[in-house]
């Protein structure tokens, strides 16, 4: 680790992170405030099961279902994924393509330490967003009239943070291996969206139900943290994936030529 690298990387990511965090909290508060007015009528709608799965079970009638469909399944992972992926790619391959690393790596710092220091900054971004989701949910649920315990809200935030770390690590690995920012961003985003689709549709097609296990999304929300709390095995999987990806990232950037 290198403290100046982590500090600078975080500092450069902070404006977008803070505005996303504030936006998240505001939206979740608004979603919570809306529930008393529309939740009961929407709850009676008949949504096709496939669409319902995409939206987190289609159970709009309860506060838990409402937040699961609005926040947990789409909004929170979208924001955390977008910030982790763009932040990770910009801080690594982005700086390489912009020729900044051509000077930074002429300093006495190992490439592995540089990557780890940058990963630490992206981890901080992920944690800030997860914290914002936690605060936003507490606020939103209160405005909705209660219905989810703080423990279950915490569970969601923790699962989300681990999901964000794994997605960020994926982007860092792609960036470290190729030095290409758009490739890292595009492929990592593709993997995230595909995981979301798999998680939503695999349960509907029994021959494909095993597929859900390859989706990072499954380990985030497959066990429904808003009703069942933290799922330790999922966290272990996400943690191992993060760790493994970082190991690959370190190895691949040590070996190759700097691009620009």
């Amino acid at each position, binding site marked *: 680790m290198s*403290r*100046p690298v982590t500090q*600078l990387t975080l500092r450069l990511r902070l404006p977008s992170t803070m505005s996303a965090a504030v936006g998240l909290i505001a939206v979740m508060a608004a979603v919570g405030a809306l529930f008393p007015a529309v939740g009961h009528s929407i709850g009676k709608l008949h949504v096709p099961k496939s669409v319902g799965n995409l939206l987190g079970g289609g159970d709009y009638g309860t506060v838990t279902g409402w937040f699961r469909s609005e926040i947990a399944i789409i909004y929170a992972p979208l924001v955390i994924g977008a910030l982790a992926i763009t932040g990770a790619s910009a801080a690594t391959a982005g700086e390489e393509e912009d*020729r900044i690393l*051509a000077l930074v*790596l002429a*300093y*006495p710092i190992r490439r592995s330490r540089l990557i780890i220091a940058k990963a630490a900054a992206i981890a901080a971004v992920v944690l800030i967003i997860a914290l914002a989701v936690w605060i936003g949910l507490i606020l939103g649920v209160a405005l909705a009239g209660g219905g989810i315990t703080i423990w279950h809200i915490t569970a969601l935030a923790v699962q989300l943070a681990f999901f964000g770390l794994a997605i960020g690590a994926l982007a860092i690995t792609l960036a470290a291996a190729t030095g290409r920012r758009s490739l890292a961003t595009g492929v990592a985003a593709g993997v995230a969206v595909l995981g979301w689709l798999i998680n939503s549709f695999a349960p509907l097609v029994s021959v494909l139900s095993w597929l859900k296990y390859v989706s990072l999304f499954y380990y985030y929300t497959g066990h429904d943290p808003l009703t069942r709390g933290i799922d330790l095995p999922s966290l272990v999987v996400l943690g191992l994936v993060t760790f493994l990806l970082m190991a690959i990232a370190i190895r691949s950037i040590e070996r*190759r030529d700097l691009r620009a």
Partner: protein
Amino acid sequence: MQAGPVIATRGLSKDYGSGRGLVELDLEVGQGEVFGLLGPNGAGKSTMLRLLLDLIKPTAGSARVLGLDSISDSLEVRGRVGFLPGDLALYPKLTGGGVLEYFTQLRGGVDRRVRDALVERFDAVLDRPIRQLSAGNRQKLGLVQAFMHEPELLILDEPIAGLDPLVQRSFHSLLSEVRAQGRTVLLSSHTLSEVERVTDRLAILRNGRLVVVDSVENLRRVAVQRLEIEFAAPVDPAEFRALPGVVDAAAVDATVTVSFEGSADPVVKVAASHYVRAVRPQDGDLEDIFLRYYRTDTT
């Protein structure tokens, strides 16, 4: 302090696949030298400098820097070298001061007084974001960060590019001081006039190959100079063609352009027999200046 050369490459090669970056370079730079790497764009200068710092890996051969292996001891090499990359890029959102502070922390052990003296010397702009700075002002920051830890070896890729004449002079005097302290400088350029006054020896690269290594003095003796001489009335260029060392002479209206190797004396003396309005030295391409080396092999 090591006894041998500060930089020594043996068969150092880089094949990018699409094109040869550097072909079997054998080169030695001694302690206290200001050594110039001269070559047109694409000659392999940046490739060589990047290989020395382990930014890219050689496809063959090896390099020793400060007596250390450029790959396995790269961390120590980078700790003892100051580097200015060609086509310098810095964090666009940081101010000049922010960038220097970052590199100071990253480097560790920098004497801030030395750094601040360099800032003053180059009149570097610290309070504006990098993206608002001109190329020349960014280059000044690049020079400050390269020199600020008083490294025993400086590797500077096209350091003079974009500097205005005043700053060039500060840079030249800094180089003289560095040399006087027994420190070593390896710098690259694609124009002879930029480096002939500051370097002791020159290596000329072309298409990744070493063309010649010699002292600046010797190279200037064979370098083709070109003078544009404006007369009051048309002068027959044949008067110049007959002179020793003259390679070419051509006239447009009352202006004669003469290319010659070696001393300018015969050309100037013939010109002086007419009324001379102006004399303008022309910066030629390296191929024109070092005709002697370039015309022999045709690639």
